[in-house]
């Protein structure tokens, strides 16, 4: 979706405020929020792409004002509500109704969970459509759901820098349509192709793009 999360190339946000010796968490609740989103019980079929998509559905002004971990809490609430694991009444009142489940991840399992996390690479019989060095056009597409093709690259011509094998397609995985793996490529776009003749002639931006985002140029 072309929502406010698609920030690449936007103006008006001011200076980057880098903090010296930034702690992992600025408040204890940030750690709790982070932990909840990692180790809580998710509905069957939940994916990292669904997680990202839900973040994108946050109201645009709140997306810009809420901190990162506040957004995670929003995501947790959405997951629980949309899956029916928690009812709106339970969430609003903060009181659980039985039954209570007994299968939450235990502390002893956390370290190996971090280690054995499933990843997005998949085997695919189909041959890659594009070769390294080939010129490609990022398609002009405007899906209402989740996608990882930023607006600023759409309709622009780049060249394939590398092929990463096949990966789960976020556009499908975020909406319960399975993995639908596709070949994934790093594509280099000259800054001038993206931003016009005032951009620096030596600069470039690289994006990881799925095969269906691209067509031969």
């Amino acid at each position, binding site marked *: *979706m*072309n*929502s*406010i999360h698609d920030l690449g*190339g*936007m*103006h*008006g*946000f*001011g200076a980057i405020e880098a903090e010296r010796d930034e702690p992992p968490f600025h408040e204890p609740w940030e750690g709790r929020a982070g932990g909840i989103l990692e180790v809580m019980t998710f509905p069957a079929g939940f994916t990292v792409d669904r997680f990202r998509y839900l973040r*994108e*559905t946050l*109201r*645009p*002004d709140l997306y*810009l*004002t809420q901190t990162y971990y506040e957004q995670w809490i929003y995501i947790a609430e959405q997951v629980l509500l949309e899956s029916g694991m928690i009812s709106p009444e339970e969430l609003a009142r903060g009181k659980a109704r039985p039954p209570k489940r007994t299968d939450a991840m235990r502390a002893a399992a956390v370290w190996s969970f971090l280690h054995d996390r499933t990843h997005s690479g998949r085997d695919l019989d189909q041959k890659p459509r594009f070769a390294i060095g080939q010129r490609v056009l990022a*398609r*002009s*597409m*405007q899906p*209402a759901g989740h996608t990882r093709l930023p*607006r600023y690259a*759409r*309709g*622009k011509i780049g060249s394939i820098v590398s092929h990463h094998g096949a990966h789960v397609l976020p556009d499908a995985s975020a909406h319960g349509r399975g993995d639908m793996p596709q070949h994934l490529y790093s594509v280099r776009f000259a800054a001038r192709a993206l*931003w*016009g003749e*005032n951009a620096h002639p030596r600069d470039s931006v690289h994006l990881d793009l799925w095969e269906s985002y691209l067509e031969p140029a």
Partner: protein
Amino acid sequence: MNGVHDMGGTHGHGPIAPEDEKHEPLWHAPWEARMLGITRGMTYPKGFNIDRFRHIRELMPPALYLARSYYDHWYAVCVAALLNGGLATREEIKSGHAAPGSARRNDAARGDQVWQSQKTQGIFTRELTTPPLFAIGQRVRARNINPTGHTRLPRYVRGKLGVVRIHHGGHVFPDTNAHMQGEAPQHLYTVAFSMRELWGADASARDETCVDLWESYLEPA
């Protein structure tokens, strides 16, 4: 600038939820009327113009721009104009009162002048001696430019091919006027872009969007 004000084609803002035309009040709160009157009637810094007004609105912090309502944007612009023009101080804005001993002007537009002024203000056409570069029916491409200052070339048409539909003659150029660098008038055209060109193969084959674009936004295609 590529700010949040450049909303064409963005998602996530929810339903339009219009009020019924017959029942929608002119003002949703009394302060909205006062804010309109202030905006129209107040004294601005010298050289201030409508393009500058729009640009200052664009410079609002993005989250505020999205969260606040229309006349509240006007409030933000007026406050910024007063502060930047040295017509009021932060303390005065906060207190709502002039600092003791500060100057008082006597040249604000009077109530009895309003009717006449609203009839005459705001003419943006300018005579040009240079002939137009583009003809009606000609294919043109909107340039891919990303200025950090004010522009009226929306992001969603940049780099896209269109057809000139109307030639409007010379018009004040907002990109310079907003920065008080002069009116620098240019030929203005209405350019039609097909929805497929703007949004890709899934868009309607019949529909189009017409956008008013100044000559320097365009190149022959």
